[in-house]
């Protein structure tokens, strides 16, 4: 098991290097000059030149990249061109926000998607199945931004039940922190719930027709036990893979959701950084996101092994 994890970690290194080179190059291809964006309305040439020197933007691009890598290896991801805050500090501020959003969205997704998938598999072809499918399709096809604005108008403006947007740190006021996050997490969670529901349904359907489920039923086990213990556990493997892959979708979805609900997380940070050509911030976020994504996939691989004893022997 340990050598398995180690092997996976070693494979991850070139992936991360490639991603960082790719993003660095991509940013340099973007039109627009970060220093011009920083110089302000009155663009004093001396200040512009000074800033170029200060942020080493006059160096050849490969040198700029290597400088960045060198600093990153020493734990220094640079400072934001816009606010002078260290990138690492910014990420430290934003990461818990997006993790909370992603976790709450995942809770929504799992709590809606999996039971709905199981139920529609069991009741295949009935009205319950159709309704679940229609709801799932709607979840997939309703755009986040529309659902978000509608929820704000209805829940916050009309009924005044939840705050319209913003963020309160969990350790400051847990209750309010959850309140502000309910709507964004719900919006982000619904699209995932739909995907999860569809996959749970098809995984359950194929498992439910298998021999061991028929045997279990023949043994006289209760239907509840058959479904949860025998069928669902075996259907879980593809669902776990999917959940890990959905992490990427969560981060991507968070970009939009955080914009709508003004949640000061990773997604908002990266969008603003791209618009301001805040290179160091974009690069830092991509690095952290890539590492996170790889870690999630590694965790999923470990989870397979735990779920499926057959893989352990190999």
């Amino acid at each position, binding site marked *: 098991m340990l050598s398995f994890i180690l092997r996976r970690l070693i494979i991850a290194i070139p992936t991360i290097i490639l991603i960082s080179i790719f993003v660095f190059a991509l940013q340099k291809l973007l*039109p*627009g*000059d*970060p220093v*011009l*964006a*920083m*110089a*302000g*309305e*009155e*663009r*004093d*040439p*001396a*200040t512009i030149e*000074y*800033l170029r020197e*200060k942020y080493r933007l006059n160096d050849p691009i490969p040198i700029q990249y290597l400088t960045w890598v060198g600093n990153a290896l020493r734990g220094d991801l640079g400072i*934001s061109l*816009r*606010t*002078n*805050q260290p990138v690492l500090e*910014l990420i430290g*501020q934003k990461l818990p926000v997006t993790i909370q959003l992603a976790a*709450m969205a995942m*809770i*929504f997704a799992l*709590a809606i998607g999996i*039971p709905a998938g199981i139920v529609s598999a069991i009741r295949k072809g009935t009205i319950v199945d159709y309704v679940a499918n229609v709801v799932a399709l709607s979840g997939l096809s309703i755009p986040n931004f529309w659902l978000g*604005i509608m929820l*704000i*108008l209805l829940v*916050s*403006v009309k009924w*005044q*039940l*939840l*705050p*319209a*947007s*913003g*963020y309160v740190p969990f350790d400051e006021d847990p*209750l*309010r922190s*959850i*309140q502000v996050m*309910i709507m964004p997490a719900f919006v982000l969670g619904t699209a995932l719930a739909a995907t999860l529901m569809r996959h749970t349904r098809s995984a359950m359907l194929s498992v439910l027709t298998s021999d061991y489920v028929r045997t279990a039923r023949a043994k006289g086990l209760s239907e509840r036990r058959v479904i949860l213990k025998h069928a669902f556990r075996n259907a879980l493997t593809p669902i776990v893979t999917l959940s890990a892959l959905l992490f990427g979708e969560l981060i991507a979805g968070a970009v939009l959701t955080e*914009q*709508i*609900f*003004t949640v*000061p997380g990773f997604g*908002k*940070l990266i969008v*603003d950084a791209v*618009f*301001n*050509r805040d290179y160091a911030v974009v690069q830092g976020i991509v690095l952290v996101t890539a590492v996170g994504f790889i870690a999630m996939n590694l965790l999923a691989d470990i989870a397979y092994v735990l779920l499926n004893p057959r893989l352990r022997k190999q």
Partner: protein
Amino acid sequence: MTLSRMTLAAALLGATALGAQAQTLRIGLQEDPDILDPDQSRTFVGRIVYASLCDKLVDITPELEIIPQLATEWSWNDDNTELTMQLREGVTFHDGTPFDAEAVAANIDRSQNLEESRRKSELTSITGVEVLGEHEIRFDLDAPDATLLAQFADRAGMMISPTAAEEAGADFGLEPICSGPFSFVERVAQDRIVLEAFPEYWNAEEILVDGVTYLPIPDTTVRLANLQSGDLDMIERMSATDMAQAESDGSITVERATSLGYDGITFNVGNGDRADNPFGADGELLRQALSASIDREALSQVVFNGVTTPGNQQYSPESPFYAEDYPVPERDVERARALLAEAGYEDGVTLEVQAPNDTDSMQVIQVIQAMASEAGIDISITSKEFATMLSDQTAGDYTASLVGWSGRVDPDGNIHQFMTTDGGINDSGYSNPEIDRLLDEARQSNDTAERQALYAEARGILNEDLPIVYLWHDTWLWAISDRVQGFVPYPDGMIRLEGVSLEED
């Protein structure tokens, strides 16, 4: 399942406890400000925060008169090259450092000499600073500079604690320390900036709230929704298209003020090779034709619900410096066609205009496109993200650009740097010795009537040359909850909290 059910239940139970904290004003901003260092910052939105955080040497009235703030009185010598100021006594910075003439000298030095300073161009006329006494200071100028007081009414005149500036250097903006009515508490990037009332403020009796929190919420609909739901007390730069929604809400008041800035089309008439196009160098007839083809009133009605002010000069018709001899022209398609013919383009001509890719700008340029086509001008639109557009414009890689200017208190700030040959932001590449002379002279005079005459004369020339076709002046819109009393709108778009109170829920 149980967990999420519990969370939901807890949330709904707690929902009744919602509501703004008593006596802390919550203001929704359109963007997150950049670095909070008056010497380094460059955004409009940052100045809104400074209005509460950092006092300036002087301030303005809503009518743009200069009035005392940290300087109580001032006088010019006979040839207008020395400005002597008396400073307010008993003022301290938020860290306890006393405010005196030495502090002012240190501030001017920092604005002029800090490598990262963006204020250098605003203070170029100051060649020396003389501390005359604890509360008296003199500024020596290389030439008369009528704009200096207006600069002192903005970031160049904001006084920061010299002790803190010394310690923090270029990182001052991470924890700014000034002498304004509110002091800095914390900032979470893209989330909030929290300030609390400074008990030792010299004008503390005018400050009626305990604190103020600024929350950047870029989406205008969401910003308004937050105000309607009671999560905010006030929002700035409400979108003109949200006017109906705001006004139909019984508990919201909308305040407005015409901005000091302008919006229009800047032509490349001499900035690099691309000035070589029909509308560029020697293209004044075609530029006049385009101007004549546009119905400025209709533009304002169609795109901005009539909230903006149609315009044809660098400042709005409300400004005392507006040249009355050149009123906003009516649309005249016949004249536009005649001008086209005179320029040798009876069969029509094509113009490429770059515009920022936001909704309003796109609508504006499409409306102009439709109007111009009736006069035989075929506009092709290139939409660009703002940073890209700006860098292309500076580099001269454009023929025409739909772009605006946020405006300055002194009229010089709206024209000198754009239209003089060596102007810092003369992206148009316009050069005319007569204009240089008129605008330089206007900058050096402290006599309003004389300046008005000089600007009017310059307008006469620029109205023929039209390197910039001015179209409209924005209107600042603030939507304010009825809990808030005493807000006064200013044409600079700032939010001054003196006299503003908040009713408790």
